[in-house]
């Protein structure tokens, strides 16, 4: 990769959830374009999922931000229109976007549901100039799919992503190495990828306010203060990044996890155990579908006072069994639970290895029977739906036998990718 000139595109749908819902509604004969009025996509407040997932540009002018609560957003704008998310639709839109991009290069990385990277280096001979092609992609998305995207073009993923942020919406922009000084450096340091609120605050204390300030700071000093992260952001500020665009099939997943916000705060140990079991069912199913086994199990919790805690443990052997995951996560949970009401619980696994090769333990019980049960349950659920078979402990309780994920767990949130 080094030395060779690369051309990378970053394609990002503008306020994805909102524009996709807007495009779908217009397509179904609605006359109002949600993108032109203050509108948001938000979860159901009755289920305690009432946070803003996406907002229109007019809603942004009222100071509404993604992630705030629906009631606070309503306080800022009284005529705010609120729509529920439609994950099936979002999968279709994301897929349609991905399919168009695949016409331009075989190397497309789905970075999240609304973002892709595309390696255009080899395609330039076929399609001509990068700028014109970026414009063409932008126009095709608008014409063919009915929603707008930003296309950023640069010599690496970092600059392509930063270029996509320069002007919104519906724009194609470039940041080539010779444009870094004019286009990248004047921006506030917070705009730089991998600089969050905490880093911004620390940088401000040493009077680094723009990306240019950061780029011209002595890297030795940054490394002393921020360790390896300091070296990373210094390189990013100078537009240096040699990470390749990797098609998703080639990415090795590092972990699997699911969490769920409960409809009401859980206080009884049995209720919590049941919720953990339901989460383990989902995590176990996903793990087995990926054909991995895990040797690290962890739990996370959020109390009614929004305090988060997590706890994890390395196992002596690898597993993909729902029962084993449940046994570990229950133990971990009750080790760190101090009796507070629980608002959200999560289960995650990591240190994955391919199923089939496993470390045997001297004291391990025979999991073969468990494995056969898991396989049978997975098959039944695949064929007849997730609700087709459940554990007896959920019968007649009205509690969900599987927790975590949306749209039957098939859906990948922003920041994830499909496997």
């Amino acid at each position, binding site marked *: 990769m080094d030395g060779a000139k690369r051309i990378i595109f970053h394609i990002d749908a503008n306020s994805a959830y909102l524009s*996709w819902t807007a495009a779908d509604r217009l*397509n179904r004969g609605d006359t109002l374009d949600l993108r032109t009025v203050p509108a948001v996509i938000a979860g159901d407040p009755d289920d305690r999922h009432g946070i803003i997932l996406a907002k229109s540009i007019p809603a942004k002018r009222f100071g509404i931000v993604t992630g705030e609560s629906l009631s606070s957003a309503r306080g800022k704008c009284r005529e705010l229109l609120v729509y529920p998310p439609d994950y099936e639709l979002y999968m279709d*839109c*994301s897929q*349609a*976007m991905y399919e168009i991009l695949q016409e331009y290069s075989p190397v497309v990385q789905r970075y999240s549901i609304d973002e892709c990277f595309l390696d255009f280096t080899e395609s330039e001979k076929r399609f001509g100039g990068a700028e014109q092609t970026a414009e063409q992609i932008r126009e095709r998305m608008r014409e063919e799919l*009915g929603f707008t995207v930003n296309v950023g073009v640069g010599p690496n993923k970092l600059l392509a992503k930063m270029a996509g942020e320069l002007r919104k919406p519906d724009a194609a922009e470039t940041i080539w190495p010779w444009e870094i000084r004019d286009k990248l450096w004047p921006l506030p340091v917070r705009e730089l990828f991998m600089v969050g609120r905490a880093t911004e605050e620390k940088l401000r204390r040493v009077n680094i306010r723009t990306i240019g300030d950061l780029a011209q700071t002595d890297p030795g000093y940054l490394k002393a203060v921020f360790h390896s992260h300091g070296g990373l952001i210094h390189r990013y500020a100078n537009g240096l990044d040699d990470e390749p665009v990797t098609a998703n099939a080639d990415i090795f997943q590092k972990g699997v996890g699911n969490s769920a916000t409960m409809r009401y705060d859980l206080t009884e140990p049995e209720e919590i155990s049941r919720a953990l079991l339901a989460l383990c069912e989902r995590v176990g199913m996903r793990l087995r579908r990926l054909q991995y086994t895990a040797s690290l199990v962890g739990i996370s919790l959020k109390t009614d006072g929004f305090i988060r805690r997590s706890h994890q443990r390395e196992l002596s052997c690898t597993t993909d069994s729902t029962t084993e995951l449940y046994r570990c996560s229950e133990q971990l949970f009750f080790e760190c639970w101090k009796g507070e009401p629980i608002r959200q619980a999560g289960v995650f696994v990591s240190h994955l290895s391919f199923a089939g090769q496993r470390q045997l333990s001297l004291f391990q019980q025979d999991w073969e029977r468990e494995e056969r049960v898991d396989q049978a349950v997975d098959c039944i659920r695949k064929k007849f739906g997730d609700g087709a078979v459940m554990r007896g402990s959920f019968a007649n309780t009205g509690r969900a036998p599987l927790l975590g994920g949306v749209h039957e767990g098939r859906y990948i949130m922003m920041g994830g990718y499909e496997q």
Partner: protein
Amino acid sequence: MKIVAKPIDAAVYFTGKETPRPYRFRCRPENGEAETVKIDRIFQTERTNIAGAPAIVYRCQSQIGDTMKLYELRYFIRECRWELYKI
């Protein structure tokens, strides 16, 4: 033409490789009897993929009563659903 996007019942030829060709349809009125319309001409078909929903739009003409009407039908491929898109 205005967008109405009303569901319809359609009688269609599916001839294999070609684009499906509707030959008549009827609207589903809330009251009264459904009127069947024979499609006299199809001027143009266009494949669309708005919001990731593949569809075929037909620009058609029919004699309805005494007047010649231009309208568009739409077929949602994934849902196998027809609608009167614009009239």
